[in-house]
Every structure is written in structure tokens, then in C-alpha cells.
């Protein structure tokens, strides 16, 4: 883990968007939500493969949990039907709860792992669950790609 953390706001100021990589959905197991874990070549110089694959695998696990059909989801479905789906006015579905968890996880990953390396993961829900979008930032100040620790703008103490 990098010792310096980029302020994500400053990432925008000091770095410019160089490229975007898209991880497509993996439909080999049907229509359930899964993303391909293939490591994109553009990220080879930016992030270690195990870290990246870990993130994607974790996301896949979360999505599988959201869409899992078991006792709890059936119960929720039957209860909702019995109350004419009015119960969703006061209660959020299990899927939505897991989506919130995913949002928090992605934010945490961005803060800890991806932003220091000049990368940013966009929550797939904002892309209609089609892709995981990874934005690659180039540091404007340096001539090469920003690797996080050598950036001059660095993190600012607030």
C-alpha cells in the first residue's frame, strides 16, 4: 500500500484522464451479474495483477450474493407479494442493500489502492451494470505516467 494518499480532488487537478479501460460482463454462467477477470494490458504497468484480480473477484462475489436465490430472497418475495409490494416503500430490498455495500467497497478500494496509482474504478451501477470502467490518469506535472509516490503535487494536509 502506498504511504502517500492522493487527495482524489487533486488527482483531477493535477492529473488528466489518459484512457479508460472497460471490463465487460462475463455471461458464461447465464444472465447473473459477473465481470470478466481478464487483466487488461493497459494496466500492466500501473497495478499489480493479484490486487486487481482480487478486486474484481470480490465484486463478483458481492453480485452473486445480491442475486442469490435462497430462503431469504423467497421470503422477501412472498412477503412483498402479500403486502402488494407496499412494503418496499419502507424497506429496501436485499439487492439494494448489497449494492450499497458494493458502493462502499469500491470507494474504499479507490482510496486505498487505485487512486495512489492514478486509477479510478467507476461503480458498474452507474454504467448500467454493463462494464467496470477503470479510468487511467496521467500526471500532468511529470513526463511519464504517474506511479503515485513520485508525484510532485502529492497529498495536501487539510
Amino acid at each position, binding site marked *: 500500500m502506498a504511504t502517500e494518499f492522493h487527495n482524489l480532488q487533486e488527482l483531477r487537478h493535477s492529473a488528466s484522464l489518459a484512457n479508460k479501460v472497460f471490463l465487460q460482463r462475463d455471461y458464461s454462467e447465464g*444472465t447473473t451479474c459477473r465481470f470478466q477477470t481478464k487483466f487488461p494490458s493497459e494496466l500492466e504497468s500501473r497495478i499489480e495483477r493479484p490486487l486487481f484480480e482480487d478486486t474484481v473477484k470480490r465484486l463478483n462475489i458481492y453480485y452473486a450474493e445480491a442475486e442469490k436465490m435462497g430462503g431469504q430472497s423467497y421470503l422477501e418475495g412472498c412477503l412483498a407479494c402479500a403486502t402488494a409490494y407496499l412494503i418496499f416503500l419502507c424497506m429496501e430490498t436485499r439487492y439494494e442493500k448489497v449494492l450499497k455495500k458494493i458502493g462502499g467497497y469500491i470507494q474504499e478500494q479507490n482510496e486505498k489502492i487505485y487512486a495512489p496509482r492514478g486509477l479510478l474504478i467507476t461503480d458498474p451501477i452507474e454504467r448500467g451494470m454493463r462494464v467496470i470502467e477503470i479510468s487511467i490518469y496521467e500526471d500532468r506535472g511529470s513526463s511519464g505516467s504517474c506511479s503515485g509516490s513520485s508525484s510532485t503535487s502529492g497529498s495536501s494536509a487539510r
Partner: protein
Amino acid sequence: MLHLRVAEPMRECEYSQISTRSSTPMETPYKKRTPKRRKWQAFPGRNKFYCNGRIMMARQTGVFYLTLVLILVTSGLFFAFDCPFLSLQLTPAIPVIGGVLFVFVLGTLFRTSFSDPGVLPRATPDEAADLERQIDVANGSSSGYRPPPRTREVVINGQTVKLKYCFTCKIFRPPRASHCSLCDNCVERFDHHCPWVGNCVGKRNYRFFYMFILSLSCLTIFIFAFVITHVILRSHRYGFLNTLKDSPASVLEVVVCFFSVWSIVGLSGFHTYLISSNQTTNEDIKGSWSSKRGKGNYNPYSYGNIFTNCCAALCGPLPPSLIDRRGFVQSDTPHPIPPTNGTTMYGSTQSQSHMAAATPLLQSEPVILTDEAFLPGRTSLGGSCSGALPLGGHPTPPTSTPNLSCDNDMLPLRNEQSDGLRHHHTDGCHHHFLTPEEAPSPPGMLPCVSPLGHSHTIQGFYNPASQDSLHEDSVRGLVKLSSV
């Protein structure tokens, strides 16, 4: 040392957002001045929205109001004219049960009609460009009259499934998704477009649709049975003619219910079959998983037993809407600096004009990609088909007989055909299913044409097995003639 400013959410949305999305350099002073648009106002599909984005319906809603009127009037007459007699003579439970059924029917109808069926949002320009690049790499060169069809194959549960590329939405459609030509959206697990509920039936509202037709069957049978009972009981006492004079509404109810029972009950039976075999109407019509297509052809999505299939369809987890209708439109995130592909269309429907100065990285003019109805013939498609209400007949399982009363528009410059299915309920119970086939075309070559040619429907005689290649050839021929 660790400090990440969590900026205020600049838009309301249902999902927790990453803090970075909302912070761009020159945003804040402008945001406070200009009124924010909600996403439903910039929605590219042909849907109507009500209640500030809470309600979403198809463009043609006339038949929905007819459905509503039929249900309300028939039930109202039942409660007004028949229930007093029946509750006295038989049991007061009759109006109570009738009332419960009636409320359930209306509830499920509204839920089906007003909710998002599972619309897939269109690809952002960056995604579309990335896909184009991948396709170009895969195909070699993008020049030539006949670019190969854009499909991807994936093996699901041992069965090879083709994923088609949607030219309107610029995505590869997930399995079981289809593009509805009436609503101009790709819908997940697309079943059919139902004019009677005024919406598509897809992944998110299929269970409500099924509950609606099931409860409507029960209500129709209930009303039919008890109106007959009422007439018989009254006739015993006062004579048949007097009965008709005292309660003329009963005749109307019997007529409406008689014709409705056949179609609605038949439809419920059909959908029960579909649910138990985990198929969509679309797949059943096309015979995608029928054994006639080949020996090894089977449905890869079925769980194997009827109970699990039913549970999955009706009680499974309900995914949230992907289109976030009530969120606020944001200014675009900057595009990557080097243009990735000169022939692709860059732009967005969401950029606000005053932000152009603040985002120097944008390479191209904002292009409006919304599909407005440039084709006058298109809107009449829905009208003419839904207006036809032949009476009489008996329920038949849906066949692929065409509805010849629909218009058949053909544009010389046509960029795309799209899949879509119109499920045409009629009182006469002939279920006409129309499945326009998709044909590829080269948007890279004709970028200026795409606003005009979006998702056009060809309706006509349709044979599921053999029409694919014919359509493709005819489209290619037309494109060849029209391309410069």
C-alpha cells in the same frame, strides 16, 4: 495524511456514489445558478414519464386506458347492481372477496404499467468507442460493403448463445435481452411489449404482469359466475324479463366477461407454461429452445424443475432500476485526450452548454443521440395495431401469424432493425406476435444517417427460422445502394 474530501452529492440518486464523481473544477458556481435537469428529461428512449420521473410508460397509452375503463366499469357495475342482491341472498363474503380481487388487480396493473421493465441504459460514448475498437480489431478492416454481422458467442450451460450488437444502444445485448422497437430501449429478459398495460414486460415487471393476468382471470371468472347466479336466482322469483329490466347492467357484464375469460385465462395458462419452463414469450415465438431446431437444443436458463423455475421468476430478488430516472443530469466527465477512433461518434446527450468551456478535454461537438420520432410512420405503428379489436374466436396458443393490419414502413436509408415483440391481446383471442428481425449495418460508414435510421421496425410476414438471412441480405443491398 489521509484526506479524501467527500464532496456533496451533486445529484440525488439511489446509490452511494464515489466521491470523485461529483468534484470537477468549475462546477460549483454554475450548478447553483442553473436549474438541474433530471435524467428522465434527457432519456433517449421513447417513453413517457409522469410524476417527475416516478412513473414510466410506453408512448402509446390509449389501450391502457381502455383496459382500465373496462376493469373499472365492469367491477363498478358488479358492485352496484349485483352485489346488493347477492350479499343479501347468499353471503356478504361475495362483495368482500370481489373487492379484494379488484384491489389486487388494480395494484398489479399499476405496478406493471408504471415500473421500469428492466431498461438497459445506452452506452456512454467512451464505452461505444471502446467496443468499436474491439470490433475493428477483430474484423481486420472496417472498409467494404459488407461488414460481418456484429455478434459474440458465449457458451452458457453447454449451449451456444449469440449476443447481438444493438446499434441504437451501442452495446452487446446480454442474453435474453431484446430491443423494443416501440419504446426504443433494450430491455433485459424481454418478454413482449404489451399495449394493454402500456409498457414492455421484462425482467423487473414480469412477476407483476403475471400476477395481474392471474388475478384478472380470477376476477373475471368470479364476476361472470356471480352475475349468472344473480340472474338465475332473480329469474326464479321475478321472471327472466323482469330481471333484465331491473338489472340491465348484468347483461353488459356477462358479455364483457364472456369474451375476456377466453383471452385472459388462455393467456394466464400460456404464461404459466412459460414460467414453468423459464422461457420468455420472445424465445417461445422464435422457437429458440425448441427441439425442432436441433437435437442438442435445450434451454440453458431452466433450472431443471418446475418449482424452482416458478420460484425464480416470481419470488426471486428484484433487481433495481438501472436507469436512475430521478437522478440529476451531470456534466460529462472529460473524455480521454487522444481520440481513439476518428469514425466514431463522440458526444453526449447530457452535456450542458455552459460546461463546454470548463472541459477543454472534450474533443468533439456534443451530438444529440436521442431518438426523436423523425419517421412519421413509426408512431402510427402502435396506433393501428392496438386499435384493431376483432371479437369472437377461441384462444389459440400464440403462433407466428402476422398482424397484417399493421403498417409496413420501409426507409431507403435504414441503419438498423431491431428485435422487438408486440404482444397483441385481443378480445377475440388471436394472439398476434410480431418479431422484426435484426439486420446489421455499418454505422461507422454512415455516421450522419444514424439519427434517422434508429431502430426501425419491419413488420410483415415472418417465419422465424428462415427470415434472418433474407432480411440481412435485403438490408445490405439497400445500404450498398445508398452508401456513397
